């Protein structure tokens, strides 16, 4: 499954591997189904006020794995704990949608009673939001919004989750053993409200970082599944029929520093973007069945009408076109790449990033006649260079936080901490702000499409390369595992065939 979890406290955790364990041991008000639609979980049903601000959840008679009932008070306490500045939760901003959530977390107010979450009785929870948020029910399935068992957390707020006996969850499984840096053993939670649905008798997460090692253990039958196999082995695994390719809400792209010559010229940015062969890159280098990205927001996001896809609605925002690219480069003053300064691509240390950069370097050289240098930096040094705009072209990737185009677009607002391109556009900012509180799905989608068009078709701030896929290698006898496009894995419905 990857590295040793940094924590298994749902309120404090940030990584996908941690979330996979927490999704197995805890359950929020909702749980995402195989189609990524939030379904009732601990909440049996809910009503939403007409202005979209007040959610009233009706909870079912669920129990913690020690037999105690899970109540609305547990949720209220857990959410306020996650927002408490003392808790110092990194993902506290997942709760900023709730009224006064941000104010309480930032210390602007100190009274937790003002936060918009309240248990009306043991089984009714009322949540008031700052502004209408179309994807709030999805967030309710996230680790940050999961309830924790107050008594054990209060007894040892920092390290309660290290003792498996204290790891009291309300989810489908419970941990029976955690060997640090080695493995985590789980068995079904007998008190889970939907216990009958669980068919697995035990579940073990092996904490292995090296994918070659995971592949070896898979081959010896010691592992039933693992993710992200080495690119060179993908072809062989496909032929053996053990590779599952699932959607993943993420885009791999190169980001331009628009303040640096010659990239301050949009024609240069467009020329570079048009002059690579994405399908070839995917087929020959990355190999994971990814989709070439001709826009920024990936497939799988809701569009303006019910059931529509944002990407299909928006279509491609540019085309690969070598002639056009050469023409644009000549217009910018560099016919056949003459006089073009040496360009540097910055990437963080990884075999895959290196290979992709090498391939693109060669494509630009062949197609446009420009010289490109590769700069490889250790992860945090790379983040620093990006932040300081100390680069020309930088590799980047973005994985959505929730299933809505907004998670891909609001990061490009002028003052966003995630916008490391030096680019800003008042019209773009206006559109995002307007879309945030727009309750009309069709009008909102229109605003987001226009924003994306400014970002890509007009300004080409980023050069999209491909939309990620989620690659998992799974033994043929393992069935029913659900892969979320956010990278989570749901084992509730998993089962193993007789071998």
């Amino acid at each position: 499954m990857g590295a040793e979890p940094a924590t298994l406290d749902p309120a404090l955790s940030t990584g996908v591997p941690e979330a996979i364990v927490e999704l197995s041991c805890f359950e929020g008000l909702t749980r995402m189904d195989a189609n990524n639609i939030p379904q009732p979980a601990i909440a049996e049903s809910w009503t939403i006020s007409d202005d979209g601000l007040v959610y009233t959840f009706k909870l079912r008679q669920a129990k913690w794995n020690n037999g105690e009932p899970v109540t609305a008070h547990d949720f209220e306490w857990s959410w306020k704990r996650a927002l408490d500045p003392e808790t110092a939760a990194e993902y506290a901003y997942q709760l900023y949608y709730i009224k006064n959530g941000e104010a309480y977390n930032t210390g602007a107010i100190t009274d937790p009673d003002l936060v918009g979450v309240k248990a009306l009785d043991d089984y009714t929870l009322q949540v008031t939001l700052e502004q209408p948020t179309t994807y709030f029910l999805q967030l309710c399935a996230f680790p940050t919004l999961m309830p924790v068992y107050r008594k054990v957390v209060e007894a040892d707020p920092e390290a309660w989750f290290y003792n498996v006996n204290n790891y009291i969850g309300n989810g489908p499984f419970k941990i029976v053993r955690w060997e640090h840096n080695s493995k985590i053993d789980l068995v079904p939670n007998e008190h889970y409200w939907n216990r009958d649905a669980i068919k697995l008798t035990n579940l073990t997460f092996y904490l292995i970082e090296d994918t070659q090692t995971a592949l070896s253990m898979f081959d010896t039958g010691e592992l039933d599944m693992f993710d992200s196999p080495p690119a060179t082995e993908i072809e062989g695994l496909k032929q053996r029929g053990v590779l599952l390719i699932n959607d993943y809400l993420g885009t791999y792209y190169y980001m331009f520093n628009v303040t640096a010559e010659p990239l301050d010229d949009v024609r240069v940015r467009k020329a570079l973007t048009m002059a690579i062969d994405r399908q070839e890159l995917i087929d020959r280098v990355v190999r994971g069945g990814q989709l070439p990205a001709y826009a920024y927001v990936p497939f799988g996001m809701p569009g303006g009408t019910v059931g529509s896809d944002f990407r299909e609605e928006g279509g491609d925002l540019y085309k690969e076109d070598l002639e056009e690219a050469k023409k644009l480069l000549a217009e910018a003053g560099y016919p056949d790449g003459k006089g073009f300064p040496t360009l540097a691509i910055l990437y963080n240390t990884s075999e895959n990033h290196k290979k992709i950069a090498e391939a693109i370097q060669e494509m630009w050289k062949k197609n446009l006649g420009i010289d490109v240098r590769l700069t490889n930096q250790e992860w945090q040094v790379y983040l620093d260079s990006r932040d300081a705009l100390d680069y020309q072209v930088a590799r980047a990737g973005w994985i959505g936080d929730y299933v809505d185009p907004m998670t891909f677009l609001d990061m490009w607002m002028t003052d966003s901490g995630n916008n490391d391109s030096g680019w800003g556009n008042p019209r773009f900012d206006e559109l995002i702000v307007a879309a945030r509180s727009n309750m009309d799905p069709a009008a909102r989608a229109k605003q987001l499409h226009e924003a994306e068009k400014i970002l890509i078709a007009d300004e080409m701030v980023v050069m999209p390369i491909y939309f990620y896929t989620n690659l998992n290698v799974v033994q043929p006898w393992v069935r029913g595992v659900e892969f979320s496009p956010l990278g989570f894995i749901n084992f509730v419905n998993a089962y193993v065939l007789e071998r």
Partner: protein
Amino acid sequence: MGSYILKRLVSGVLVVLIVATATFMLMRSIPGGPFRREKALPAAIQRNIEARYKLNDPLWKQYLDYMKNMLRGDFGPSFKYIGRSVNSIIEDGFPVSAVLGGVTIIFSLVVGIPAGIISALNQNKWQDNLAMGIAIVGVSVPSFVMATLLMYVFAVKLRWFPAAMWGTPRHVVLPMLALSAFPTAFFARLMRSSTLDVLSQDYIRTARSKGLSWAAVVYKHVLKNSVLPIITYLGPQAAAILTGSFVVESIFAIPGLGRYYVTSIYNRDYTTIMGVTIFYCIILVALNLLVDIAYSWLDPRIKLTEAKE
């Protein structure tokens, strides 16, 4: 001797303090931080976290606080593994690395020393060529390649051993082989060289002509002559092997201490970087002291205390 050991202990403490200080300064002068993420955190959250881990204190105060706690034997809480202390990380990881490292050292001595002697006694015959050939190929293959190939051949193809993880004696074999390639080759080459050295001496020819057997020659003269470089090498090498190897532990998914030397730096897990570095430094200083004491015990002519001028 007593005063010498005392003097060394004092200078050892000084070494640890200098290493701790230098590491602290280096670590705080490289970019990044323990809570630096690709997705930028809202400023308020960043502030909350820094307040909780006292990262907003002035640097000199953080340094003094750390040193004070360190001298009490408290390495502080990890910045990456929330709620875990660095002490408990070392307590969990070190025994695993030490077992693997101990087995590795014993293996490389037991294989390397005889291999070197046999090579020398059969200089330029097939035994010599074979042993030295294996030794050279053994050091010419990088440890990450060696580890992966061993796993592939002996676990995936032959199924003799489990591919990875830790727990039973069978889990020890492959990582031990990967880890011992270098020291074994070193001991074998060193022994061969020392043995040839001794064999060419006149007094050995005399001893041989007086009917002393090869076994006695090896035992009396060769071992005595070559033990010095071997334990010299063994000091720092044992410190490194016993506290774990990053490459081998990562590839074989072994829950030892070795992985933390590299990952803690990537994670900018400040307290863990300091903790494992200081721990390694203490072991290194202690083993080097043992080596020096062993010198004067093995070779009474060696006087450590007397200055030349």
